[in-house]
């Protein structure tokens, strides 16, 4: 297991409200982690490119579906194509519950699909489980 401190999460979301609330939810859930924020698909892919030299790849990507410029599914597809990132856990975190979106996400290699609930307390609960699972329980490559 890698070190418990400073777990990096890449959060891809264009809505600043959602970004703030997600960060708050992680804080409230008591999870110790660091966030990289990408506000659209292009930024997300740029962050993952080797020339930006990130210290290390994120432990998990939280990816919204509906994004400006390059949408979530396209980001997912390219992440899975790149040998460096193809094994990264990607969790879809989105508003949509359309069966089509869910199916397409899994087909393109999403590891998990989570609907952002309206109720903030519920969201905290969800984030807590999600964080614990992907950062602590799950054994990543």
């Amino acid at each position: 297991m890698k070190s418990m401190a400073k777990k990096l999460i890449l959060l891809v979301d264009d809505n600043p409200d959602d970004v703030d609330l997600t960060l708050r939810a992680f804080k409230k859930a008591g999870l110790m982690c660091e966030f990289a924020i990408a506000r659209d698909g292009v930024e997300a892919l740029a962050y993952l490119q080797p020339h930006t030299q990130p210290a290390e790849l994120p432990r998990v990507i939280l990816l919204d579906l509906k994004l400006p410029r390059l949408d979530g599914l396209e980001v997912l597809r390219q992440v899975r194509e790149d040998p460096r990132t193809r094994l990264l856990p990607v969790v879809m975190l989105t508003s949509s519950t359309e069966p089509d979106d869910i199916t397409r996400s899994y087909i393109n290699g999403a590891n998990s699909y989570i609907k952002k609930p309206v109720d903030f307390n519920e969201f905290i609960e969800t984030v807590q489980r999600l964080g614990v699972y992907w950062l602590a329980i799950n054994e990543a490559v």
Partner: protein
Amino acid sequence: MPGSPLTRLRSRVTILIFLILVPTTIVMLLNFQTQWALLNSEAQEEMQRLAQLVATRQIQLTESAEQLLRTLVEVPEVQSGNCNELFMNLIDQFRNYTNLYLVDADGFTVCSGLPVDPTASFKEQNWFKATMAERGFTTGDYAMGVVSQRPVVSYGYPVFDEQGEIPYILGVSLDLQWIEGLVDADLLPAYTTITALDRNGTVLYSYPAGTETIGAQYHPEIYALLEDQTLGTLEATLEGGVPRIYGVIRLTGGDTVLVGRDQHDVYADSNNLLVRNLLGLALVALVAVPLIRLRAYHAFVRPVEDLVDKLKRLAAGDTSTRIDLATVRVVYEMHELGSVINQMAESMENRQQSLERDRDRSEVRVKLRAKEMEFLVDTSRVLSSSLDYEATLKSVAHLTIPELGDWCAINVMEDNRPRWVALAHLNPRIQAEGERYLHQYELVHDNLPNAVLQGTPKIYNDNLEEFVAELTPDPAIARMLYEQMLAGGIKSVLLVPLVLRGKVSGLIALVFAESGNRHDLSHLLLGKELGRRAAVAVENSQLYRELQRWSQNLEQRVEERTRQLTDVNHELETFSYSVSHDLRAPLRAIDGFSQALIEDYADQLDEDGQNYLRRVRAATQRMGALIDDLLELSRVTRREMATVPIDLSLIAHEVIEELQTAEPDRKVEVIIQPGLKADGDTNLVFIVLQNLLGNAWKFSSRQEVAKIEFGTTRYEGEEVFFVRDNGAGFDMQYGNKLFGAFQRLHHNNEFEGTGIGLATVQRIVHRHGGWVKATAVIGQGATFYFTLGSENRHEEHGKEAYFTGG
């Protein structure tokens, strides 16, 4: 010698008289024998002609049936098996058919023009078997119609599907009583009988009525004689013990037509003449005897010997023998006798020659008839080969020349205007010229000629002025046309109307010009027959075109609607997606930041302020629930259904377990009838039970002993599913609002809910072809009844499983 009684003059004279009378009588009888032979030959020919005429009508009936069936198999209603109404209309229109029916491959009736026993199978009927085996049009045997109770002959025609299988057979029953009207009785000589047999020798009809029993086997000894005759005659004594001469025609399919005439009637005139001649002879003998007695032996013995000699030669068949009247002029009576014998000999010679001529002519005529038959068969083949009548009529026009005319032009009424559709001439160059002329003619002419509208064919030989008067009321134009016709060498015109059921739909004009031929009765009869057949073909194809136009139009409209629907569906999907994604995001922000305020700024907010924020959050969450439910409602309409057999009891247990897990403290008595099965979409049916059982769970929450039941029952005579609870119930007065979206009968502070669940339930059962209804009493609970299509199935009656929450 003298003294011998034989040599006496008296005796000699007596002998002489015998010598004269006997051969004379022989000659007379020979003469009549010749006459009888001629009469017999004439009668045979006439009977053959009549047999052919009747046979032609019979062929036409079969062809009409084939054309009807051929047209009908193309009709979409027939191909889809939804044709009861169409058939009812058709047998109402075509009275000569007792019924039309479509049967499936097992012989069971799919549709029928008359009500039939649906359990009765046609599988053993010979026309059904024959149509299956031959995969084409077939004719059945004589039968007594099951429904109509009239003698019928059935015809079958296969309907092919795309794989070339035969899912249906189309059948039609021809009413045999109808055939009787085919023969114009006043055209027939007296004492004529007509009998038609099918290929098994069964009597299909007989004229006059009652001569033969319809449906009975025809005289087997006669039928055996007919086996290998195609066209012939026979003499027999059958009906009523009357000897008759029969003309026989045997058609390709094995059907036979016999036309018989009483022999007594044939010979009656001739026999009367014979009696008169014999009497005259006796009279001559009586006058001659006293004269002979007075004359000397030599005066008349030699002439008598001469007479006897000549008569012998006559009797031997030398009809050119004549008595030299100079040798017998001594005795007036001898002279008379001689001239009578000469007359007889001459008449015999004439008759013999005429008989020979008649034989030749008769042979020519039989050949001609065979050719006419062939022509009609060819025509029929062309007419029924295609539904494009313009092309068909062009081929028919070419078939008529040069036999029926040097020119043939066909005009058909289209949208109440006559239009030339075909022109034929043996020479294509001359035909092209004629076509140009015909189109000019069209301009001065906007209705069919009156003679044609009367429905009978007419010949114009030497009265071409009359013909042009038919074409135009304007005498100047008529004059011009007449001169053009004379210049074109037109000799004879036969105008034939295309008539069907009394309606004139066009004309065929047959014109003799350069050949110098004239139309006669045989052309007229043949032309009339041709006109009738062409009219059938024209009507069939017009009907077919109309059907085609109609179905194309329908297809176009369906396509358009489908496209519109697809567009709308697509828009709806885009809209739902936006709702799903974009409407929830701001709600999350409102809820999240309200919560943040409550948590982080609790010390700066008083109790009221915190209360307001809690209410903001409650409202936000309710809106979130509404969006979710609305999405589900729209999704159940859009989603494609996968219908499979499902176990509703199992799904109900799952739903109840979910509800129990969410509220572990509730104690509810749940009774689910086991083995409830239906065909449906598993996900959608799950949503139905989730909503109905969820409602029952929710509305019985105030009950001390809550009870929920799921099972089947009879509702208005139908086996239906029901979900019953003993909860709050509702006022039936507002029952009709129950299934509308956002309709709620309870206040939110009593029972939570979005008011969309039952609308969702209704949409789902409707998509399954079922329905949902509710009954309730306030405070005593509600029962919801629903079906999923027509087939609710359930097993293991009587056993009930109890599931008690708690």
